[in-house]
């Protein structure tokens, strides 16, 4: 009984960590531009697909992973440069639709350049399950937790301890004032896409040994990352992390105790619930400002 619960919890935390990274990606771009980047899931997919393809082609895994992250970041930067920036005077909804178009384009391009097959990566440190109080934990899950934790700590450090990180935060709080102290908002926007792409790709790489990946894998992961971000309060980094873990755990418990047929529906139920009952999310800004 408890072992089963623990088992669901492990699997929920594993996918939750990936949703958290995707949710952070949404939050970072949203903060820099108020755009919801629906191509976020494609960064996850590209990270997984590129690393799997490179490893299959004989590139040593560490190098393949680094290359996959760089490819994903390059795609993020290109997306901003060639799709978002030319439309910077359009309204936010238009730009959001552009990101949906970009995500379809990226899926199509992956299909053509790579293929339509499922791919996997070897687990980073073996496949021997670890027994924990009757439940089993795959070593790769530990990799997922650890890598997500490192990314989160790294992000915290970046936004709180580096000048450029603070400038990105400042831009999200007050774009005009940021420009007036000399922050280049174009650079901030570009960096936000590169950073979000990196977060997504890291998630994609570490989870691929568990879930496999193909050109369509980003759709669901992206939408679940989005529901994580919405649940946590759009634009709130800590909220996105907790939102991701909640989405992951609820989804795993629901598919365990109810039916696995509902697994993918959970994220959408959560989005609807949040939109109906707490549109600011768990930790979102209430609309109060000193005038």
């Amino acid at each position, binding site marked *: 009984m408890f072992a089963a619960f623990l088992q669901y919890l492990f699997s929920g935390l594993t996918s939750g960590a990936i949703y958290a990274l995707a949710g952070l990606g949404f939050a970072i771009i949203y903060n820099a531009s108020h755009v919801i980047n629906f191509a976020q899931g494609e960064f996850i997919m590209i990270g997984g697909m590129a690393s799997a393809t490179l490893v299959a082609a004989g590139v040593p895994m560490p190098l393949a992973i680094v290359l996959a992250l760089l490819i994903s970041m390059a795609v993020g930067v290109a997306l901003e440069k060639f799709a978002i920036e030319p439309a910077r005077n359009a309204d936010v909804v238009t730009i959001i639709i552009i990101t949906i178009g970009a995500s379809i384009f990226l899926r199509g391009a992956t299909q053509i350049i790579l293929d339509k097959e499922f791919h996997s990566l070897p687990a980073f440190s073996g496949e021997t399950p670890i027994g924990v109080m009757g439940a089993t934990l795959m070593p790769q899950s530990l990799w997922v937790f650890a890598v997500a934790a490192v990314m989160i700590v790294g992000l915290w450090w970046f936004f709180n301890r580096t*000048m450029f990180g*603070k400038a990105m935060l400042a831009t999200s*709080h007050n774009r*005009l004032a940021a*420009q007036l*102290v*000399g*922050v280049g908002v174009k650079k901030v926007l570009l960096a936000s896409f590169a950073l979000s792409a990196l977060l997504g790709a890291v998630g994609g790489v570490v989870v691929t040994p568990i879930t496999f990946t193909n050109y369509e894998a980003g759709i669901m992961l992206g939408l679940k990352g989005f529901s994580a971000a919405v649940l946590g309060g759009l634009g709130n980094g800590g909220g996105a992390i907790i939102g991701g873990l909640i989405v992951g755990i609820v989804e795993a418990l629901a598919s365990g105790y109810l039916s696995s047929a509902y697994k993918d529906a959970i994220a959408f139920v959560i989005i609807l619930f949040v939109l109906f009952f707490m549109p600011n999310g768990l930790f979102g800004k209430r609309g109060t400002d*000193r005038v």
Partner: protein
Amino acid sequence: MGTLLEISGLTSHYGRIQALKGIDVTVAEGELVALVGANGAGKTTLLRCISGVQPVSGGSVRFDGADITTLVAEKRVGLGISQSPEGRQVFGPMSVEDNLRLGAYLRSGPEIQADMQRMYDMFPILYKKRELPAGTLSGGQQQMLAIARALMGKPRVLLLDEPSMGLAPLLVEEIFRTIVALKEAGTTIFLVEQNAYAALAIADRGYVLETGSVVLSDTGQALISNEKVKEAYLGL
């Protein structure tokens, strides 16, 4: 003293509405120049054009002899144009200290710390509250922070947009005393105010802006005693 800031024939539009209709304004080094006018006259628009955050549709902005009309905002800060914007616009959730540090975003080196200390000496309340989120400060304290943040950029010209807006009379006095002190320390200041009397009283020269055009310009004292100005802006 040479001309530092020279605006000639400047026009700017919001969509089809023309907010500035050919403005000519100069600010010389070391001067305190006031721009007064009613709400909606285009004062804030002019300052935003100078800082490069509002598109210019005609005319030119020259700074220290160089044409900066099309320069992006961050480069202008680098040249030495800092602005304390209307409505203060502090980075609310960030600490007072971070707000100040961001004022020196384009600078580096050890003297930033010394400048920060200077700001704290000038506004001791900011030192006391340095670790608090800027959004929790009172309106007057936020105004001091906005001015201090602009000063952290080591400006060659300081643009102040409505520093007295929404403040209690005692605080207004304090802000204006600060502006006078800054001027006496040699800072070049371009002050935009609705509080025409207070602004003109401390200004070397002043301009009166009406619906996008400069209608009067003279020394601050002369404008204060000008009948038209008295009637329209000073309520005398």
